[in-house]
């Protein structure tokens, strides 16, 4: 089986609006199938940018990013969008649930762009929400607590059965106690579904939740990769 994620010789220069820029360089990073990694870095170190590169939302200047054995940046246009929808799930700091859509519909929104048969959408969404402890499937995001919204976002990320889940500061809007509960649940569900998890965070308290932690600075070609 191919690795869920394999990055090699990646370089991307991020130009900020103020005229400043920083260059993100990663010599090598591999996340085997079902593995869980916490990527740590300070604010502005390029953590979110790395996730966007992995998801194929932006293109690197150099290097290769293989997701489930496929170089995502070799795919163009709609093919890349389809690939992302099927193989990559994303969880955001602010959850980014669709307003006006119920919890179940938010999960099914991800399935709407997949090749999963329509007859299975409802069942799959209900199953995931139940597993994540969401009882009110018909509640809209506004009617759910922050913690519940986060769990709906996790369900949505896993709806299409991706090989890789990317979580961008998933605990940033939660208190420390709930943050740990949420991370544990997220890890559990990813393990159950066989999805690898790459979580980026600047929160040092999450280190103990992950068996593998990587400091972004250490991934620079000149640095020492952390284990």
């Amino acid at each position: 089986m191919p690795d869920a994620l394999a990055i090699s010789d990646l370089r991307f220069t991020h130009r900020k609006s103020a005229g400043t820029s920083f260059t993100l360089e990663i010599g090598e990073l591999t996340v085997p199938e079902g593995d869980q990694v916490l990527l740590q870095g300070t604010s502005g170190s390029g953590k979110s940018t790395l996730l966007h590169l992995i998801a194929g939302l932006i293109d690197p200047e150099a290097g290769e990013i293989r997701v489930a054995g496929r170089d995502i940046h070799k795919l163009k246009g709609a093919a890349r969008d389809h690939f992302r929808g099927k193989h990559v799930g994303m969880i955001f700091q602010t959850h980014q649930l669709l307003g006006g859509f119920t919890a179940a519909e938010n999960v099914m929104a991800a399935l709407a762009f997949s090749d999963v048969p329509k007859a299975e959408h409802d069942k799959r969404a209900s199953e995931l929400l139940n597993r994540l402890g969401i009882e009110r499937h018909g509640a809209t995001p506004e009617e759910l607590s922050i913690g519940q919204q986060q769990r709906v976002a996790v369900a949505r990320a896993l709806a299409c059965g991706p090989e890789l889940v990317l979580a961008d500061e998933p605990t940033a809007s939660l208190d420390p106690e709930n943050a740990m509960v949420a991370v544990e649940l997220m890890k559990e569900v990813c393990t159950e579904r066989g999805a690898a998890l790459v979580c980026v965070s600047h929160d040092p308290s999450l280190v103990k939740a992950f068996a593998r932690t990587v400091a972004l600075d250490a991934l620079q070609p000149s640095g020492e990769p952390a284990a």
Partner: protein
Amino acid sequence: MPVTDFTFVSRSLSARTFSTITTILTVAVAVALLLVLLGMRDSGRKAFERGTGNMHLLLSRDASPLVSVLNGVYYAGAPRRPIDWASYQQIQQQYPWAWAIPTQIGDSFKGRPVLATTTEFFTAFEPSPGEPWQIAEGRFFETSFELVVGADAAKALGLTVGQRLSVTHGAPGPGGKLPEGAHVHDEFVYQIVGILKPTGSAHDRSLFSDLDSSWTLHAHDRRLVSEGPNIALTTPADLTDADRLITGIYCRLITRPGRDVTAVLQQVFEQLRADPTITVAQPSDEVRKLFAIVSNLDQIIIGIAFVVLAASGVSIMLALYNTMEQRRRQIAVLRVLGATRGKIFGLVMTESALIGIFGFVVGLVGSLIGATVVADLMYQRLGIVVDPSIDPKIAFGVALGTVALATIAGLVPAIVAYRVSVVRNLRPAA
């Protein structure tokens, strides 16, 4: 229920109900205006043409040919200057008529005109070419003081065969208003002997009797003035030449199969025009002239309707464009979930087209109501029976145009949606 493209579009529309409804209403107003104008123009012309039937010429002593047609065929008012019977007979004998039917308008019943004529009116004149009169109930009149009632008059006034009534001296003008001095001839009682089937012409709102009845009524008025109030009831035997007056003559030249009547018609027309006491009208020409006069205004109004429709397209574009700012984040999320740029473009275009479709449907309903109101007004004011239905071909054309316009209007917002930067719009709000 699975989430489909329609879910995304309908949620987007319902998320801004007020804006969606006002935009749909803007489109609907333009569509209704356009449908009523295009539809009524067509059915209005048909209604006018239908009333003139198979006559070639209408003779009267009205001020102009157009007035002659409006009064003599559409009952717009009572002609003021009559034609005496001797003149009628002379005209009748002088030209190669297939028929020359005398008519007299001057009486009414509850605001409906009473046309006095001969039985030839029902046997020779056809209110619509190729469609002769048909009796719904009873028969045509045969003797004096028998009435035949047009379909619409019978329905509106609740008249039935066998009913007896007295008519009013004085024909209603525009709006059904009677002239000063109008009075009911209680002394003379008519009996309804027949109800006509609808013809779709102005004749449907009229009642019909023979000329002797009408002449007798007016002769009685004359005798009351000259001989005093204690006279015996006037009979046809009391009629003098001065009583035998008519207001119009429906004429048709003799035609033979395969022979064009145009040349003879023109010749007769010119000869009659040489007589300064007669007004000669070719009803179909007068209707054409009337529509030529009206068409300038008509074209301006239709032009305005198209401008309103174009403006409604702009309002669709603005309504969708203004929501793009709020929807960038949602679009970015959909892209992350696997939606292609093309899919996002298509969703916005579908949304725009849906506004056009809803606008058309609401506009169509509005146009049917509007057409009924306009048809009623035309009937009340001009006596023209206009079919208020909208021609399906016109409706289909306007539907296609509206959806096409709405789709074009959606192009700019759809391009904006297509170009939304996913990364920029996924950043947490400050």
